[in-house]
């Protein structure tokens, strides 16, 4: 099967790749662009470890085909920090020990950032339901929820 040429933007950089029409965006990010921050936990859109943004919208990159990225803007965990300055969520996740093994962390950070961009003052329930598509098996979510709530508070106060 012949491959398809795709031009897209990832974390602000113009990139190109050739992909099989069956390959997912997640496969392309990881295997063709060496952006291995997004993880495959299930391949069926149930765990959220592969969360990225596609033109600003939160998606599971395992449910998007690589060819669908043509002309789009992709955001991954690798683009969250500004140079060597961590995003407040990233710093808070370290401060709160909001991760144990860390495999779900990239997806949760991408998802939480998307939440705070559209709702800077979420309730605990809103955070819990927003992150319900991101599975974490280690933490019981307690410290993750606290980290997100506290980041939102800091970011509101900083404005």
């Amino acid at each position, binding site marked *: 099967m012949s491959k398809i040429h795709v031009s897209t933007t990832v974390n602000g950089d113009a990139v190109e790749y050739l992909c099989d029409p069956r390959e997912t965006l997640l496969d392309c990010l990881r295997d063709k662009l060496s952006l291995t921050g*997004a993880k495959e*936990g299930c391949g069926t859109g149930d765990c959220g470890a592969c969360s990225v943004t596609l033109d600003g919208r939160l998606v599971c990159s395992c449910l998007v085909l690589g060819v669908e990225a043509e002309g789009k803007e992709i955001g991954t965990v690798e683009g969250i920090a500004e140079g060597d300055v961590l995003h407040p969520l990233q710093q808070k996740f370290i401060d709160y020990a909001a991760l144990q093994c*860390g495999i779900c962390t990239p997806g949760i950070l991408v998802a939480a950032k998307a939440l705070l961009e559209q709702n800077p003052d979420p309730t605990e329930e809103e955070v*819990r339901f927003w992150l319900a598509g991101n599975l974490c098996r280690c933490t019981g979510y307690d410290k993750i929820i*606290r980290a997100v709530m506290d980041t939102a508070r800091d970011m509101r106060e900083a404005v």
Partner: protein
Amino acid sequence: MALDDRKSDGFTFVGTRPNRPDGLDKVTGRARFGADAHAPGMLHGAILRSPHAHARILRIDTSKAEALKDVKAVVTRADFSDKVEFAPGLEGDFWNILENVMAGDKALYDGHAVAAVAATSALAARDALKLIEVDYEVLPHVTDVDKAMLMDAPVIRQGAADYSVPEGMHPNVVRKHESGHGDVEAGFAEADLVIEDHFTTEATHQGYIEPHACLATLGADGKGELWCCTQGHWIVQKTCAALLGIETANLRVTASEIGGGFGGKTTVFIEPVALALSRKANKPVKLVMSRSEVFRATGPTASASMDIRIGMKKDGTLTAAQGTFRLQGGAFPGGPADFTAMCAFAPYNLPHVRQVGYDVMTNRPKQAAYRAPGSPMAAFAVESVIDELCNQLGLDPIEVRPKNASREGTKASYGPRFQRVGLVETLEAAKAHPHYTAPLKPGQGRGISCGFWFNHGGETSVSLALSEDGSAQVMVGTPDIGGSRASMALMAAEVLGIPYENIRVTIADTATLGYNDVSHGSRVTYASGLATIKAARHAVEKLCERAAKKWGIPVDAVKWENGCAVPSGPNAGEFDPLPLADITADMGRTGGPISGHFEATPEGAGVSFATHIVDAEVDPETGKTKVVRYTVVQDAGKAIHPTYVEGQFQGGAAQGIGWALNEEYIYGADGRLQNSVFLDYRIPVASDLPMIDTVIVEVPNPGHPFGVRGVGETSICPPLAAIANAVSAAAGARMRQLPMSPPRILAALKADG
């Protein structure tokens, strides 16, 4: 955060909460997990799996797959070292593991590997699997533990039972455990109330978010490199070397960052297959499981069928206890029948106790360890009966438990006498916690349970090397599964007296450190921690020797204080404190590099107890249960990094909630797993859970220099029972089956009312 302020315990670093050393890697996507590795010229592997629960493999024709241009190797069982013309047959555990990673003459469960392919791309490998033809003779199967013990059940494998199984039992019963003391019938005669009941739990998966993944290279020279996500790379090294018929030292295994394990990554599944493919293709091979493969072919925990009988006096005194535990461990021996039986009554001081466990084979994947294997199921059954005894005798369950609790000197139900243990302290803390007396709303119920786990020491090696600038590198061999680098650095800092930030902890590969047992048994902070402390003390001895030499005084006149060598007393002479960095700056000229080592098998792991309090709310119309409040109280011995200790408590509780309410392996009449994706095997999500409150109790373990007890596993022992007791109270009906799914709760409500 009160622990932070309490530095009156004599510790400087231990008990503080610094950021983990690998935090930046983990929040930026830079950390390299199993599937994140690449190698030049790398091929991609894929595995063909049996669609049958039990079938004889009559023929495997791989010729069409091998004819594909992109396919570089196809492997079946004929390529492994049990091939008689190349190596003598494997025996015992190694043979069982080989049978599990690649089926021999029979496929024993849905998902059992039968062939593997390496191709130039992952898609090509998957396409090639479709061209492999396998002829099966489908055989009768059994997946239920009680049915597998019936005399007419299909036999999984003749001759798998060992000496412990009495004559007359079905060949699927492969191990029997029996222990206890006293005369249980005499004990029951003393009781005012005896309750006997039957309980079952379903198999649940560890549910780590990272599927198994590896990158293997094995050349014609018999030398190999293996990168994989594992809880213990030395066991991977030893096992793979045996299965591939090469010398252990010729296979170097590097542990990647690991995306969860919970016991499920303590053995091998795909690693030997990837090595065999690599050897055949003469190229590196990457092999990554899909989620469905993880569910179908890696270890869930055992399911259980249990009978419990307990006697109690009117004042709450337990007089006797008896339990029979049947553990379904899949198509191989190894179900934790012994642990289940031994843990069941461990929290209680019982004059008369007897427990029997049976390890039973079925046509399911080989069970693997899951966080305190066996103990949560046993606690569910035992603590449910104790709760019912309290209900019927009108007693407060939190008053009854301390009255009967195991304490220092108690003869444990499984044999030994306990050393200093903290069960009573957890019960007292639970009783004093505001949760226990908070009012409940209509439709809610409260449950408590105790839980017990042995904890483990295990073979351990640590090396600690000092640098010229006074910083230290610590090489440990236990993969960091939840922040253990931070704990190691804190313990090293405590002994050396240098800043936490100046210590780098690395998970060494198998070629650069001595043997290490797996990250299991809640052993890492205990055993690698003890080893780190002793390695640091070993380095400190050498630092003191250098100072003694410089000052011209005997070494026993030098002591180590706050990161400096100082004279041990006024008679030793007057010298200014000599900081560590001043000694290391000159070490090349004063005797050479300074390192510390520890290689041994620590034996003082120190058992651990917990008490959990749960409030559950049951919707009588739908049968849906919501956990509305949860408190974990557990003895940590000494919390090295309290935040990560809390994390272990919370994680165990959350997994327990999933196990109690929702998670189960569901098999169809055809013996196939019906729910092999996360959509259908639903683990708790953020919106299912409340905040999980924690109380760290510290009753020091006499077997560790700083008092550490393992904390990882005990946290999953009480939840099943605590939640069952809460749900039973809320529903007004005793729940005897897990998971307490809405249909089961509705059925219980209907039967009751």
